[in-house]
């Protein structure tokens, strides 16, 4: 605060500070109209796509898949991303509506908050497709169909694989994702649902590591010290956390994949590499390549065949373990 007393400098300091701050804050506002500037003379149908805007490899693959599928289907795709804010997503949808696009695809950040803007779309007769995560709206005719991964089923598949592998008896450490996120809740509840019928399987520690590798490693280190040799299985809500747990287990002088069974969800390429190396036992795929299926539905919608489309379409999840990882790894895109 001493500089502020020095009046000759303070004014200059203020101007510079303001300039610097605005330079930092500006990019945040600039992107919402990215989708504007359409080419009106184009005869190709125009699809508006609103993405969440986080940086994970999974999300990257998801965006890529939608873009490629749109190009293959001959659509003109306008892309907007919410930069992890629901408000930005709603604004982007409004802007697509006022531009009069032919259809809108939304990968919503949150389940609620969509009624008003979807009603606007309905009034303008613009069909809406919900991708990846679900929305809760009072009138479900506001969107045509939902396409996404079944995060509840993923937990069931993981638990079933485990039950078979350990013959119904194991002491499990659970590494949870971010608290309150729908995949975390689903992957936890469904896992518990299955092991309820197998009293031999017991969760001895359960902690959140926020889908992060570093945090998972640190949490796992602490659990290893507290529970020591009791731990037989680690169930991680995503691959990154499983990779962190594997590092911690190795540093404790044990062999992940042998001394401690590790299973996870997502099916990223790095998880396949870990399975081939024998360190990860199983991953349940949560497929981000939803683009082709979305474009197929868009094709039907634009052709007016909306009646044949189911309200909810789940992308199939597959289970991969060390027995089939090696042959699959080459075809992994993400």
């Amino acid at each position: 605060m001493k500089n502020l007393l020095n009046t000759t400098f303070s004014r200059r300091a203020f101007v510079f500070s303001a300039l610097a701050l605005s330079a930092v804050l500006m990019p945040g506002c600039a992107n919402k109209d990215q989708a504007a500037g359409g080419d009106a003379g184009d005869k190709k149908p125009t699809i508006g796509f609103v993405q969440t805007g986080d940086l994970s490899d999974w999300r990257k693959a998801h965006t890529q898949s939608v873009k490629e599928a749109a190009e293959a289907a001959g659509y003109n795709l306008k892309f907007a991303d919410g930069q992890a804010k629901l408000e930005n997503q709603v604004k982007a949808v409004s802007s697509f509506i006022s531009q009069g696009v032919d259809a809108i695809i939304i990968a919503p950040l949150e389940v609620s908050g969509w009624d008003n803007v979807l009603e606007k779309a309905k009034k303008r007769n613009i069909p809406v497709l919900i991708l990846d995560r679900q929305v809760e709206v009072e009138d479900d005719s506001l969107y045509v169909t939902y396409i996404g991964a079944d995060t509840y089923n993923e937990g069931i598949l993981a638990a079933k694989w485990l039950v078979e592998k350990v013959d119904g008896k194991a002491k499990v450490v659970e590494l949870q994702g971010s608290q309150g996120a729908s995949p975390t809740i689903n992957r936890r509840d469904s896992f518990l649902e299955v092991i309820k019928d197998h009293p031999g399987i017991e969760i001895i520690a359960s902690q959140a590591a926020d889908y992060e590798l570093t945090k998972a490693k640190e949490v796992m280190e602490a659990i290893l010290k507290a529970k020591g040799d009791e731990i037989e299985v680690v169930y991680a809500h995503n691959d990154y956390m499983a990779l962190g747990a594997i590092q911690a287990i190795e540093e404790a002088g044990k062999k992940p994949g042998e001394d401690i069974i590790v299973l996870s969800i997502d099916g990223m390429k790095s998880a396949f590499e870990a399975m081939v190396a024998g360190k990860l036992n199983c991953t349940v795929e949560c497929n981000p390549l939803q683009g082709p299926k979305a474009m197929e539905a868009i094709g039907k919608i634009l052709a007016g065949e909306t009646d044949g489309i189911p309200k909810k379409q789940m992308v199939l999840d597959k289970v991969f373990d060390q027995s089939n990882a090696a042959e699959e790894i080459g075809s992994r895109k993400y």
Partner: protein
Amino acid sequence: MTQDVNLKKNRLGWQPPPAFYALLGLAALLLVNWFCIPSFFEIQVRDGNFYGSLIDVFNRGAIGVLLAIGMTLVVATGGVDLSVGSVVAICGAVVAIVLTTTQFGIVVAIAAGLLAAVGAGAVNGILITWLRIEPIIATLVLMVSGRGIAKYIAGEQTVAVPPELASPTLDFLGNGHFLGLPFPITIAAVLFVVTLLVVRRTSVGLLVESVGANPSASRACGINDTVVKLTVYVFAGFCAGLAGIIDLANIGIADPTNAGALSELDAIFAVLVGGTALTGGRFSLTGAVIGALLLQTLMTTLYTWGVPSDVAPVPKAIVILLVCLLQSPTLRSWLERTLRGNRKMGSRQVEASS
């Protein structure tokens, strides 16, 4: 260290060294652990290396200690550096990208990462000294934009360093052992000792303190406060760079979104808890290091107990508040009076004095 252990008589009879309350907090926390989690103090030897919760504290705490050392000198000049967390991310991204996309090898990669970190510190220093921007604003710019820069460098994704590129050098920096202890501990310890020697055995510490206590007076004495300030920000950048390399080496992945996130605040906490005032002037490096270890002990304790990581910041905040309360002279003299009043004059005086 003479300033650190400068015992002065005051109204309360004894003025403890700055690091005293951080030490007290650390001791209290360890005492709780002694009774609640006896396994916390177990140290085994596995594969010829030490293994146990306490080792984890020092190992995971190394990053916090590095950041706290850099932050102490910045705070001592009356400034603050909010950008160190982002610099951690930038440095990690640079090292990972140079390693994976070029043929230059690990030495050049690490040099490039440290250069980027030092450069970031220099930018902070120039904004603050030449353009006279308030430190909190100048470093806020890099705190916000730095993470964007790190993402841009990394190509908007996490960069995994394949094991064949990481070993042996990078792998050793993060996961190797020296004298049976994880190597990050050695890095932090060496930096601490060297900094302490330079600061306390030469006039550097005195220059930093005088610039922090009164910049105009020290200018009048012929101290070049611009150079002193520039140096401490560059040094803070260098410390953040080292932390970034350890972070990358530890997990083998540069994650521009999460690397070092919010660690600048932990570093500031560590410095304050360690007895250095935000107003600048006198500082205690030892205190900051103990403060950083206190925070890490707390986190490791919470994980060992099984407190969910999204709830963990609450007990952390409580401990920080308690240590700050202990440091408050107002509260201490009030307690003193209350206790004395209780003994001599009964409870009516207590109410009056509160």
